[in-house]
Every structure is written in C-alpha cells, then in structure tokens.
C-alpha cells in the first residue's frame, strides 16, 4: 500500500522588486539561514492587489508571507526571520549587543541612506555639498564602529551588516553617477575593508541586482528629481 507523504514544507513568499535594497535584506537573511522561499516580483507602478491587501498601510515591498502570516517593514521582517529560523543567528543573545546591532541598523536607514540617497544622489550644487558633508559625518561613525571587526556582527554577518549591506553595491553606483567618492579607502579604511568582505561573502555576492540596470534607474531618478526643481 502506498504511504501518503504529506508535504510538511513551509510556504515562504517574499514580495520584492529587482532593485529594492530593502527586499534584498530579506532575501539575504532567508538564504543565509537556508530557508526555501518563492519570490513574487512586483512592479511598483502597477502594484498587485495581493501586495495592497498584505501591506495596506505602506503599500511597499518587501512583504514576507510565512504560512499565511504577513510581515511588513524590512527590519521587522529580519527580526521575525531570526526568531523563527534559529540557525545562523543574526542577533547576539546579550541585550546590550542586541541593542547595539539595532542601533546601527536604524542609523543606516534614518541617517546614512537619507544623506547619500536624498542628499548626494538626488541633489546638486550647495544641497549636494551639504548632503556629502553629512554623509562623511555618518560614515565616520560607521568607521569607528566597524574598526577591529570583520563584520558589524563580529565574526559573522549580523543584522547591522544586512541593514547596511546596500553600501557594498548601491553606493558604488551612486559614486559613479555623481562623480564623488564617499567610502574613500584612505579616509575610511575599516569601512572600505568591510565593504569588500561583505560584497564578496557567500550568498551576498550571488544576489546583487544587475549593476547596469541600477545605473540606468538611478540616473533617471536623479534627473527626475533635479528636473522637478527647475523653475518654470
């Protein structure tokens, strides 16, 4: 008699876009933990009804759906992943070290991304200079934090590395487009070393989005933003 095998596999879906550095965090985390998942590719100009149903408040990617449970916001998703699949932990046990990791992840989103994305990529002239100066300040804090460590998480990739990981690929593209170097090897040697280490780490290196496509996209974003500022 045939034995029926019930499929006990979990259903894990990630709603993402090819370019999103936020969705990439989720993909990295799942792959680092060896979790199988399906990707649902979204077009942000034409969002699927399912995405709008799952994330009615922000209407953004990434969204994680795990056996019907919906989680939104990339940093919230990362903590969910870490608590659900305990292999290769992203956060340390010690409360203070945990708080520290969360702090740097948040700093990356609140400050670093704002000054580099909003200030340097999308602006020009004096505004860009201000964005650049602010970015230098922010990068110096990261330099001080990473000094003496292989990753922000210590010997292995942690939450802060994943949250800041966009610096190891997307930043190169920003630098190329605006013609400015932000993570200068001489100014920020430890951060430059981390960038290399992270960019080439297994799994991370296999999942970067297409560079040329990103250049095209970011150039368009920059031009659109600068065009908007032109007086009529």
């Amino acid at each position: 008699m045939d034995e029926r095998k019930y499929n006990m596999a979990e259903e894990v879906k990630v709603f993402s876009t090819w370019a999103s550095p936020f969705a990439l965090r989720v993909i990295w985390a799942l792959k680092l933990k060896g979790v199988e998942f399906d990707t649902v590719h979204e077009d942000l100009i034409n969002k699927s009804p399912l995405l709008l149903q799952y994330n009615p408040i922000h209407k953004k990617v990434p969204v994680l759906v795990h056996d019907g449970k919906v989680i939104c916001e990339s940093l919230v998703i990362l903590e969910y992943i870490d608590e659900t699949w305990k292999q290769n932990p992203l956060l340390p046990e010690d409360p203070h070290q945990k708080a520290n990791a969360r702090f740097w992840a948040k700093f990356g989103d609140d400050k670093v991304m704002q000054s580099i994305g909003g200030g340097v990529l999308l602006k020009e002239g004096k505004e860009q200079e201000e964005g650049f100066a602010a970015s230098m300040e922010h990068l110096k804090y990261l330099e001080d934090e990473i000094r003496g460590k292989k990753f922000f998480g210590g010997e292995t990739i942690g939450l802060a590395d994943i949250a800041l990981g966009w610096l190891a690929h997307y930043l190169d593209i920003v630098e190329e487009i605006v013609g400015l170097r932000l993570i200068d090897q001489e100014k920020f040697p430890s951060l430059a070393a981390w960038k290399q280490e992270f960019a080439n780490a297994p799994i991370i290196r296999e999942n970067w989005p297409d560079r040329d496509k990103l250049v095209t996209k970011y150039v368009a974003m920059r031009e659109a933003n600068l065009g908007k500022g032109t007086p009529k």
Partner: protein
Amino acid sequence: MADEVTLLDFWASPFGIRVRIALAEKGVKYEYSEQNLKNKSALLLQMNPVYKKIPTLIHNGRSVCESLIIVQYVDDAWKANAPFLPSDPHQRAQTRFWADFIDKKVFEITKKIWTAKGEELEGAKKDFIECLKLLEGELGEKPYFGGENLGYVDVAFVPFYCWFYAYETCGKFSIEAECPKIIAWAKRCMKKESVSRSLEDPKKVYEFVLELRKRLGVD
C-alpha cells in the same frame, strides 16, 4: 552587584516618557537626570555621541540610545516580569510594525499640528485622525494594544497622550470627538501607576509648546 541605571531625559519628551514607563513597569530603580538641551552635558555627549539626544539610558556604564531600542533593551535586560512583547514571533512582528508606524508616520504629523497653519495644518489634522483610526482598528476590543496588559505599542504611544491637549488647542479640534476609543484606551492606561507617574501635566506641556512656537517664529 547592584545595577546602576541612569536615564538622561527631558521632562516633556514623549520619547523619554516611553523609557520612564518601561522602567517603572519592570520595577527598576534608576536615577533620573534632567538634561538641558540648549547646553548639552558632557555626559550626554559622551553617552550618545551619534545623535546627542535624549532619552539615553546608562546601565552599568554602558549606554543605550533611541527610545524604542531602549524599551526593547529594558524588556531584554529585566526579563523576570511584565514582558512588553508577546512570545510568538508573528505577534512580536505585528507589535514592532505598529511601534514603527507610530515613529514613522504619527510623530511627524503631530509636529505639523503645533507648527503649521492654514491648509498645512488642516492636512496634518486629517492625517493624524486617520492614523488614530488605524490604531483604533489595531486595538479592536482589547483593553490594551498588548492585550490584557500594557505592551510595547502601549508604551510607544501613550506618552503622546499628554501632548493631546496641546495638539487640540493649537489645532482647534477635539481628538475625543473623532477617536473616542483612543481616548478611552489612554485613560485606561493612565489608571496604571507606571503611566500616570511618567506622563507630564498636559497644561505644562501646552505652555512648553507655546514657548517652542515662539522660538520657531510660528506665532
């Protein structure tokens, strides 16, 4: 070894109040240190060099910064009682989502209510009420966002209650008229000592907001 806990704070800050509630809920004895934000202390600059802001918690010489990160830290470091977060990962994610929503959306809007005028003010009021209605939806029929007891989202949001009078007076509207469930929830929270002792007098907060408006050239 006794725990040494110091909270660098500013009386009117809803972010600081979050931490006061969290420490009170856990029964942690601490030194409250009122900070002069116009002339920041060497200790604040040393303990929070990146943001130079309050609240900053110092626990046995090590600092923790950013109010929600501090609240989670307090929950982790003093595990024995009053957990703020549920144990189930999905429920924890929901809780974190709503606290993040409060910081990302609600706070920015409230600032506009006491600084903006005309159309911008009307827009901010509308957005604020919409956010409160979403929060009412999340609360549902529960006494607290945390269920039967105060939880992370309650701690994250209830400090703003002592600023409601300032919002209503500056914005010339009634929050209770639009969102009675939120007011009922806030009053329920205020019955808890950890909350009533941590929130400031709304009239004092309003005086402070008037001073800020003068300083910012709003009035």
